[in-house]
């Protein structure tokens, strides 16, 4: 199948406007004749469900949480970008577009990214009108901060809980539509399959997590707003229940998977403590605005710290290596996430890491406290410092924080065209679940922007084009054999998992997979490691299906069974990520291949051969996937080597 990105013709700044005009419209009176399924109620899902219901469509929204407000978007701390230029510091739609393209290491579509920058301003308007309590100046106007290495202040924020407030805005809009009867909200229900008949998405199969009931739901279109797959690494900043299942099952039904290897490793996370660790906690990137990253210059000092013989404050100034400031004098501690992460790994690999595991670097606020006073620092980061102290038990006002990179965001996801439609007609993917806008690396404060752009301002336009084309009659009832077969497949899979009765828990397999992924397909990768990882994952997957232990039955609340199904999918996805990382013989953004680096150790792209989106097609269980390439064309920006020196 030929990939058609459907990027409209014309000048960059006019593409979206022209495209909108070219899209077919659904007559207002006809909208009520269309049913749309939205899976997931995070930023993308809740905003899409609410906006579509406002237009008049009948929406069924699904979440596996008990409430639509618990999706992991809620945990985003830092902020949301928008090209408002309220600060008069030279920002513009084009600059946000340019920064995003460059930040993504030239592996995203110009058209998509420009549209994202364009609608970013509408998002802020919308959220403020909903009552999102963004930070304000004393005069009552909106405050901004610079974030994640941006040279302009374009990030809007609500303390350290921006994601929470934006999600609540969308949740409130959704709640209003639930009250209006336009959205039917179905909670504690997990999507386990998508039903495709005559080449179109017709509905989904779900499992009620309380009763275990396997049920069918049909609609004219299905939107997957199911987030990213960072939990394939077991330890990540994602929530415990975040998973790839919805996207992966859609992939197995024909939706191509785009750039699965692009993983963002966030530099400022609380380091791992022990085997029992269940997740990693992110400390907002904004900390790097005032904190200085360092490790001891000598391995001996680091060794003593690791053994607890000396403390960070015992290391004199001239024995400290502020390695980001040293290597990147102009950006210093504010280099992009991938650069900061990789450098932390290097110094730890050199044996200069701190913390008993040796896998941590310091983030030190002593200078900032001396310069601005403790009060100022407390006002900026008080809640983050408190959070750190709760988890680690150290007081960051007195001893430097310890941080280490952790998996945070997955730029890859289901391949979608400009309309956010996957390769299955009628099946859409929004937010982190799709691959679209961030290229090989996402800038800070851009995930919230993308999720809401997709849900509030893109899908309400683009879905009409498809619906108007198929017409209201083109829907299949749930008693269609395809649905019955779909239900049976889920029953069979669950019965199979329950009948293995092996000796290892689901968690043990998940952890084992995570170790493989982190060691060989994590912050830096090489061909040899990736080949090894592929084999290890295949073996682990085979063992999982022989020896996993899942107790209980399907017909009850069964958290082990839920987890088992998700880990089964991760075990397949992991291999595809490795394949993708292996085939991409270059370094770009979040994908760093050790074989392809500059003499200074920076990522070295191969624009001649790899300026494309890798879209993978599923061909059957345990069969190699087929690679399709969507060439990326750059007409408005010049591809340069990223330099943060």
């Amino acid at each position, binding site marked *: 199948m030929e990939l058609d990105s459907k990027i409209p013709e014309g000048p960059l700044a006019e593409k979206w406007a022209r495209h909108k005009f070219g899209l077919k419209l659904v007559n207002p009176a006809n909208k009520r004749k269309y049913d749309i399924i939205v899976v997931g109620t995070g930023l993308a899902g809740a905003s899409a469900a609410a906006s579509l219901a406002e237009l008049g469509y009948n929406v069924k929204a699904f979440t596996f949480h008990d409430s639509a407000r618990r999706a992991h978007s809620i945990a985003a701390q830092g902020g949301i970008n928008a090209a408002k230029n309220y600060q008069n510091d030279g920002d513009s739609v084009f600059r946000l577009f340019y920064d995003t393209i460059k930040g993504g290491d030239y592996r995203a579509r110009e058209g998509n990214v420009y549209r994202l920058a364009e609608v970013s301003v509408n998002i802020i308007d919308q959220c403020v009108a909903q009552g999102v*309590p963004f930070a304000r100046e004393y005069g009552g106007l909106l405050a901004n901060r610079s974030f994640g290495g941006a040279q302009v202040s374009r990030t809007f924020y609500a303390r350290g809980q921006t994601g929470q407030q934006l999600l609540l805005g969308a949740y409130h809009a959704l709640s209003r539509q639930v009250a209006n009867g336009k959205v039917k909200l179905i909670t504690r229900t997990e999507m386990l399959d998508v039903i495709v008949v005559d080449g179109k998405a017709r509905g989904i199969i779900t499992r009620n997590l309380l009763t275990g009931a396997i049920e069918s739901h049909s609609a004219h279109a299905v939107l997957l707003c199911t987030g990213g797959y960072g939990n394939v690494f077991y330890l990540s900043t994602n*929530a415990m229940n975040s998973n790839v299942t919805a996207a992966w099952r859609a992939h197995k039904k024909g939706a191509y998977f785009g750039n699965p290897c692009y993983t963002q490793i966030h530099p400022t996370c609380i380091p791992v403590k*022990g085997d029992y660790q269940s997740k990693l906690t992110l400390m907002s990137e904004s900390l790097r605005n005032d904190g200085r990253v360092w490790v001891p210059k000598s391995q001996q000092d680091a060794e003593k710290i690791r053994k607890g013989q000396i403390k960070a404050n015992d290391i004199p100034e001239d024995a400290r290596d502020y390695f980001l400031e040293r290597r990147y004098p102009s950006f210093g501690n504010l280099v992009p996430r991938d650069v900061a992460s990789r450098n932390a790994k290097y110094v730890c690999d050199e044996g200069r890491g701190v913390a008993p595991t040796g896998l941590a670097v310091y983030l030190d606020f002593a200078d900032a406290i001396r310069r601005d006073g403790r009060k100022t620092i407390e006002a900026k980061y008080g809640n983050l410092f408190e959070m750190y102290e709760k*988890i680690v*038990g150290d007081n960051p006002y007195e001893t430097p924080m310890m941080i280490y990179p952790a998996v945070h965001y997955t730029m890859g996801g289901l391949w979608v065209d400009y309309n956010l439609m996957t390769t299955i007609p009628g099946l859409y993917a929004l937010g982190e679940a799709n691959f679209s806008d961030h290229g090989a690396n996402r800038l800070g404060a851009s995930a919230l922007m993308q999720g809401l752009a997709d849900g509030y301002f893109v899908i309400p336009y683009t879905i009409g084009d498809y619906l108007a084309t198929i017409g209201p009659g083109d829907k299949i009832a749930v008693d269609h054999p395809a649905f019955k077969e779909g239900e049976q497949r889920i029953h069979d899979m669950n019965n199979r998992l329950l009948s293995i009765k092996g000796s290892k828990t689901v968690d043990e397999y998940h952890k084992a997979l995570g170790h493989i992924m982190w060691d060989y397909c994590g912050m830096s990768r090489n061909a040899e490691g990736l080949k090894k990882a592929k084999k290890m994952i295949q073996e682990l997957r085979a063992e999982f299906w022989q020896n996993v232990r899942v107790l209980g039955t399907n017909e009850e609340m069964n958290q082990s069974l839920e987890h088992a199904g998700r880990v089964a999918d991760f075990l397949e996805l992991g291999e595809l990520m490795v394949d993708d990382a292996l085939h991409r013989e270059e370094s770009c953004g979040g994908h760093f291949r050790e074989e392809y680096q500059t003499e200074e150790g920076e990522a070295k792209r191969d624009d001649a051969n790899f300026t494309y989106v890798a879209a993978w097609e599923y061909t059957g269980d345990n069969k190699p996937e087929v690679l399709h390439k969507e060439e990326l064309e750059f007409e408005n920006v010049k591809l340069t080597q990223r330099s943060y020196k």
Partner: protein
Amino acid sequence: MKITLKVWRQKNSNTPGKLVEYQLDNISPDMSFLEMFDVLNGELTKKGEEIIAFDHDCREGICGSCSMYINGRAHGPQTGSTTCQLHMRSFSDGDTIVVEPWRARAFPVIKDLMVDRTAFDRIAQAGGYISVNTGSAPDANEIPVPREVADTAMDAAQCIACGACVAACKNASAMLYVAAKVSHFAVLPQGQAERTMRAERMVAQMDTEGFGACSFTGACSVECPKSISLDHIARLNREYLGAKLTSNNVQG
């Protein structure tokens, strides 16, 4: 550390439950409270026993899923935090820890430590929003909000809807949750249009759900992971009385 856990086990909402004792021998003080449950569940699985069901997700104190009543307190002994943010260093070697679900008529137990908190969503649906359709908003800076007002709104809006206020209240009252919701919108200029209707409807829904009344003991605010202030409850009272006295809604 060695820990004795007494955990509420209940098959489903129709079956009575009881406290069951578990011994844990290898607990690290750096472990989070929920990681201890992960370890226990791993051991139970190996032994062929049913695992303990509990709600949890983000494990960083913001999603509001986790909800354990630990040694007589909502979210355990550490104030200003959720169960997932509680670490074993808050306990001592040899401690016995009693873990129960939230208990309220409006929060029926689903299984073990998991309760149904959809009552909160229904209260939000009753009016916890500003009616603004996508696309119809004016420029964001056309609505100035004084910083102090934005801060007050944020203080209220940061509620994570975990239900600790209900769990801690001797009357299982949801006043702090509803107050936080109503306050968030009541102080903002954007929330004025629906201000009276919102207070009336949300309180009516709160009563319908079967929560208790407020005795102003302050337990909710102390146990709230976000330390939401009792000021908001006073504001809710004010909003509600004001709404009832001034609205045109004669039907009640």
